[in-house]
């Protein structure tokens, strides 16, 4: 996964709260065994409405999605992140994210930029006034800016998540640096804890 310093491009404003992952990628798409090819399914049901924001001119080139509170709630499907990326999004800006979605986003290199309620209102207003405006999400600085509107807002992103996004780190490789500690931990686990294969071998 390549590191991400900054994302600059146009944005799509999705003024809804509690956008769940069933909307982001409907269940029928979860039968795929690849990480790619999900773009046609992104917001599949909502895109049947010609007025939906992703059907507007320029949306296909957008790199940033701005949405309401509790974005990505519901199912743990990482396919939601893959679908957003496959469509072209590199960052999602919202006042809050569901925990699993946020983790999935960082794992897959989609920037979850958490801004204040006031900031998201200002971003929506600026994008309504200037739909094609260039938006800059700076991971290093943890800011989102719309230069044409004179907007610069800070966003929250945990230090470790920021580091992983900047460096494009393989999380498993980082963890395996602790191999010895994992092995030591395993040696002191209580004996009564269940083990699937051993129990079945006995029965």
């Amino acid at each position: 996964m390549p590191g991400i310093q900054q994302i600059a491009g146009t944005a799509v404003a999705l003024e809804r709260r509690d956008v769940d992952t069933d909307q982001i990628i409907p269940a029928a798409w979860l039968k795929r065994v690849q990480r790619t090819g999900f773009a046609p399914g992104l917001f599949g049901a909502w895109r049947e409405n010609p007025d939906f924001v992703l059907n507007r001119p320029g949306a296909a080139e957008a790199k940033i999605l701005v949405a309401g509170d509790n974005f990505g709630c519901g199912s743990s499907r990482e396919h939601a992140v893959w679908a957003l990326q496959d469509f072209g999004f590199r960052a999602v800006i919202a006042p809050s994210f569901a925990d699993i979605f946020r983790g999935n986003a960082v794992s897959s290199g989609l920037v979850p930029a958490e801004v204040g309620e006031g900031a998201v209102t200002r971003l929506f207003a600026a994008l309504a006034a200037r739909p094609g405006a260039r938006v800059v999400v700076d991971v290093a600085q943890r800011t989102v800016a719309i230069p044409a509107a004179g907007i610069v807002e800070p966003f929250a992103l945990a230090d470790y998540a920021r580091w992983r996004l900047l460096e494009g780190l393989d999380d498993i490789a980082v963890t395996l640096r602790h191999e010895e500690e994992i092995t030591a931990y395993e040696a002191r686990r209580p004996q009564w804890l269940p083990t699937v294969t051993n129990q079945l071998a006995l029965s």
Partner: protein
Amino acid sequence: MTGRLFDTVWDRHLVASPEGEPPLLYIDLHLVHEVTSPQAFEGLELAGRRVRRPGLTLATMDHDVPTRDLDQPIADELAAEQIARLRRNCEVHGVRLHALGSIDQGIVHVIGPQLGLSQPGMTIVCGDSHTSTHGAFGALAFGIGTSEVEHVLATQTLRQVKPAAMAVTVDGELAPGLTAKDLVLGIIRTLGPGGGVGSVIEYRGPAVRALSMAGRMTVCNMSIEAGARAGMIAPDETTFAWLEGRRHSPRGRQWEQALDDWRGLVTDDGAAFDREVRVDAAALRPAVTWGTTPAQSVFIDDVIPEPGSFATPAGQQAARRALTYMDLRPGVPIRDVTVDAVFIGSCTNGRLEDLRAAAEVIRGRKVHPGVRALVVPGSARVKADAEAEGLDRFFLDAGFEWRSAGCSMCLGMNGDIIAPGERCASTSNRNFEGRQGPGGRTHLVAPAVAAATAVAGHFTLPGDL
């Protein structure tokens, strides 16, 4: 003493707490299913890694398996390929698989507890948000994404920022006829769909203690519907009695050792939480959702709410959008809303106790003409046990379809769906737009209410029949 159950379980699983990184948490049990694992196994193989602890990993097939004609090849080619892929991955990596057709197959959150694999004080993860179910045993259990599935397969650990601790204390007792489903829908309504984000909820209080293990699983299962990372209930005699003698439960001297340990998994009376919420069980009535998040529910005696009655502009907008999608008008009694379908099943309400509650209502009655009703047991074992009690006959005689185990119409991946515009009374956990099929409308209810609704053709209680 001010210890909390959550901290005890968390601290016990700390493998490493490196400077500047979230701590590494050891995972005692990793449950795997066909939908969120193929890309993880592929990633593992591309990196030349292996499954670190196959013995702590258990796979089953549930999300897109057919629930009828199991003797036939799977008609859905994509589902068939995904299921075959899981079988192949389990064979290559030495992971135990309870495959379709096995008596141990079923919804992953039903079979873990059923086999005695979900025990107090454990950490349990699965690529499924309803993994919170296993918290009913005093385990720390939560859903993860596919990248994390790969991480656990490779390392048997997860890197986790410690969530906040929330207490939901339920005072009083549930009125007769009220169930864990009504309780958890009441809790979610109080918290809102994002009220638990960043938190692990511990459910406490007399009404929680009074719940059976099945009821506790229903409550913990839906923690994610309030946005919570996990839900937990401290283990007690109810838990121990339920676990004793199950296939993977400790035996003999180890059972005694485990019991000694589990009795210490408590939250002290004086413990402080980051947030504390109190719910009065006595104030609850049977719940029915009217909207498109599980937080949008009313009592069965209520009317569809006015969007203007919600406190915030965002809440009002969400209510208006939900009412439009659900094709409902404010002021209409929820009892007057008619349904096209009834679904009894899911990891929320697909256990034997749930089927018994529904069967008791349906016994000797008929499904309303025009209503399509199906029962999908949570596991093959639940199905067999229900049949041993004769429950299948009550359902079949009433006009229900009696299916084989799987997630089925809870998420509509396997072809068990409702048609666009159809309305379903469902014992599942999510009423999101299109959850049970594109354009479908879902109302979440308890099993007995679903059964009564199937008979009446509109939302009603067993006592009204």
